[in-house]
């Protein structure tokens, strides 16, 4: 959890990078790959959703002020 200190904010910035990579990466695949099966589309969309929820939880738990 970020505690508003420079170290805490640096940690939050680091912690957000992995789920952000997941969101961007799977969204790129979903938008750019035409040959995906329905199961693959559902799986990748679920991964975008779970990474988005993880980011929301990180932000909600951070005390930035």
């Amino acid at each position: 959890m970020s505690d508003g200190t420079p170290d805490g904010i640096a940690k939050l910035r680091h912690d957000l990078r992995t789920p952000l990579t997941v969101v961007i990466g799977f969204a790129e695949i979903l938008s750019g790959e035409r040959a995906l099966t329905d199961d693959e589309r559902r799986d990748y969309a679920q991964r975008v959703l779970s990474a988005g929820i993880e980011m929301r939880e990180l932000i909600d738990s951070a005390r930035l002020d």
Partner: protein
Amino acid sequence: MSRILVVDDDHNLRELVAIRLQKAGHRVLTAASAGEALAIVDQRGAPDLVVLDVLMPGMSGFELLPALRSIDGMQDLPAIFLSGRVEEHHIRTGRSMGAVYLTKPFSANALTKTIEKLEQRDVAAAPAGW
């Protein structure tokens, strides 16, 4: 085409990297920790290249790479660090180990191009486990 071991404690990130590399024609195995990675190498033999997260519970990627390179025949193992740590001292540490250091969020194109460059090194014949 290379045999690539991807090590990251985040399951979605591992899957994303594996999908991207498989689509580029590589054979990919994944591990959730350094211990799992060492066990895979023990069972399946040496990969051509490793993609390592830096901060993981237990042994970090910076500790795992020397451990892998201490294994017979893996002294020159090419490595890519894929990390959320963007501080200069982390990048310097990774590069000082002769590895490529990419920061998250990375572009799939940058990752595959980096692997192509590393592949220009001599690639050993595939062990039976791969």
